[in-house]
């Protein structure tokens, strides 16, 4: 099974350090793997046909697609032959047996079965092992996920993370929509990565319409994308001290985040930047107001950074906890901060041509622990402040080019677009037919990091889980869709 031409071809690209953008199934019985060459930004797509509902699994040789193939199995009914773990991922026992929402034409709510939604969990058996179940509803204000821990004493032996509690069926809902109907849904896929999702959709339509973005439009998008990174990183940085009871740092970070959001509300009309990027368009904002906001933020941010970096107890608490091995970051296809804090240097911004003149300095660490993820985020936040300022300065000097109009016309074709969201490489695989969506697949930044988080937690104490979890700070919404 491991030696099919399909698996060899994919394997070869992985070994040449290509980055897997997405593994997508389409209802015409085809599986497509699309890879990115990080050296020049070119893409390479490979296909395999689905024959009699079967296709050869890549998972035995390409660990990172284990979830993708389970998802395809659940939503299309295509069976990845040779997959070592075909437990349901998205579907639950409540789903009718022959209901495959992305394969069957009808996407009406099916007659759900009167069963519990829980899928079988992998647990450790043996003397002294206890099973601790957490979720899907939680004691704090967090998204829904179900975590099944196997513990021995305080130590985590295994974590089985059952996500997709928030699965709404967005990809199926998008099918059939027109270009102008898509934008509000994509904008609300995930509040933490909304600008990144909106930009991916805009890039898709623009590419299929042969629209050429002006520099003004590109700079506006950089301001928005980096403003979102500042917002999300502030939120995520605030959570890490909360995980160890360092309340002063937690509350102060929330206050800084609030200050930033009030600025965004004034400049862009929304506290999370919903509906600020569309095909052919980006919210103009005001470069002057943004620069003023940056100036007002700087002392608050510097004081907070000094507080957390100067607190030895806090720094010690993070060190050596939740270590991601660099080899795992590669095998799991890790993305974003979790990957860069474990030595995997990939940042999608370095291959996007419109970022090229900004001389981005990716922040890397080799340690792979909570402390490394924390400090990579600190550095990235400072870098985003710099990028926003640089783009705003350009906009002030020569940003009066026409920034384009809303594109709503009937494009056709398939395109794969990506940006670096605050949570990592975010990919959209879009198929349009005369301006209508016929397939829309979203591979969010967190998707490959969830299985890596589960692996990382094993070997740590259960009390470290909140800390490790918050240092990854993976969102659920665009993962579950």
């Amino acid at each position: 099974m491991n030696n099919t031409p399909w698996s060899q071809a994919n394997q070869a690209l992985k070994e040449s350090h290509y980055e897997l953008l997405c593994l997508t199934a389409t209802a015409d019985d085809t599986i497509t793997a699309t890879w990115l060459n990080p050296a020049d930004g070119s893409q390479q797509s490979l296909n395999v046909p689905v024959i009699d509902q079967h296709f050869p699994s890549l998972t035995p040789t390409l660990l990172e697609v284990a979830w993708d193939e389970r998802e395809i199995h659940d939503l299309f009914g295509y069976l990845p032959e040779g997959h070592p773990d075909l437990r349901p991922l998205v579907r639950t026992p409540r789903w009718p047996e022959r209901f495959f929402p992305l394969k069957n034409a009808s996407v009406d709510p099916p007659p759900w079965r009167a069963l519990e939604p829980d899928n079988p969990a992998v647990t450790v058996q043996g003397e002294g092992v206890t099973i601790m179940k957490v979720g899907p509803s939680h004691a704090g204000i967090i998204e829904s996920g179900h975590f099944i821990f196997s513990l021995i004493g305080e130590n985590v032996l295994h974590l089985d993370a059952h996500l997709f509690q928030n699965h709404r069926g967005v990809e199926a809902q998008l099918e059939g929509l027109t270009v102008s109907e898509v934008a509000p849904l994509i904008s609300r896929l995930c509040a933490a990565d909304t600008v990144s999702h909106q930009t991916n959709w805009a890039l898709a339509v623009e590419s299929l319409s042969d629209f050429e973005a002006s520099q003004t439009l590109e700079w506006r998008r950089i301001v928005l994308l980096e403003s979102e990174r500042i917002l999300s990183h502030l939120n995520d940085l605030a959570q890490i001290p909360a995980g160890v009871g360092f309340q002063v740092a937690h509350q102060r970070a929330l206050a800084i985040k609030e200050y930033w959001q009030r600025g965004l509300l004034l400049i862009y009309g929304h506290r999370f930047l919903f509906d600020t990027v569309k095909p052919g368009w980006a919210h103009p904002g005001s470069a002057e107001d943004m620069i003023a906001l940056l100036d007002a933020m700087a002392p608050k941010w510097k004081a907070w950074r000094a507080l957390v970096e100067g607190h030895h107890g806090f720094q010690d608490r993070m060190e050596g906890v939740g270590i991601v091995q660099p080899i795992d970051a590669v095998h799991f296809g890790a993305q974003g901060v979790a990957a860069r804090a474990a030595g995997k240097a990939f940042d999608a911004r370095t291959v996007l041509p419109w970022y090229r003149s900004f001389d981005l300095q990716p922040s890397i660490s080799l340690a792979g622990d909570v402390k490394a993820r924390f400090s990579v985020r600190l550095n990235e936040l400072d870098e985003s402040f710099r990028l926003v300022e640089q783009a705003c300065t350009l906009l002030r000097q020569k940003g009066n080019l026409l920034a384009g109009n809303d594109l709503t016309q009937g494009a056709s074709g398939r395109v794969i677009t990506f940006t670096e969201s605050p949570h990592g490489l975010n990919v959209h695989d879009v198929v349009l037919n005369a301006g209508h969506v016929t397939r829309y697949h979203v591979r969010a930044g967190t998707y490959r990091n969830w299985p890596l988080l589960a692996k990382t937690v094993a070997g740590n104490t259960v009390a470290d889980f909140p800390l490790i979890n918050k240092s990854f700070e993976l969102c659920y919404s665009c993962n579950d869709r």
Partner: protein
Amino acid sequence: MTKTQRSLQIRHVDGGSCNGCEQELAALTGPDYDMQQFGLDIVASPRHADALLATGPVTDTMATAVERVWDAVAAPKLRIAFGDCAAGCGVFQHAYASHGGLDDPDLVIPGCPPDPKAVIQVLRQWLKANALPS
């Protein structure tokens, strides 16, 4: 329970939100809005709660959990739909695995996501005007 009720302890459940509603709830408990000063708080257990607050369009997978949490809250109690998704007017309510919002809410707080200042206003007004439904 009478109309002089001064506080409302809330148990939150995410029914498939985009996390925008969660982030605003977190802001409400932060230093700028500090909802606790008005007797409003998010609590860890439904046993300590007077109200269930759901966000999101209520996915099929979370529908059972939402109702179980509701059952665990002692009466008199309140059902709050927080945000357009839970209120049944969000963008994902027609997705196949979405139940289209929280069933039978006593109180709807609209917005995508609701503005934190408005949330405090709505909850305080509600407390002034109403007793918890038994």
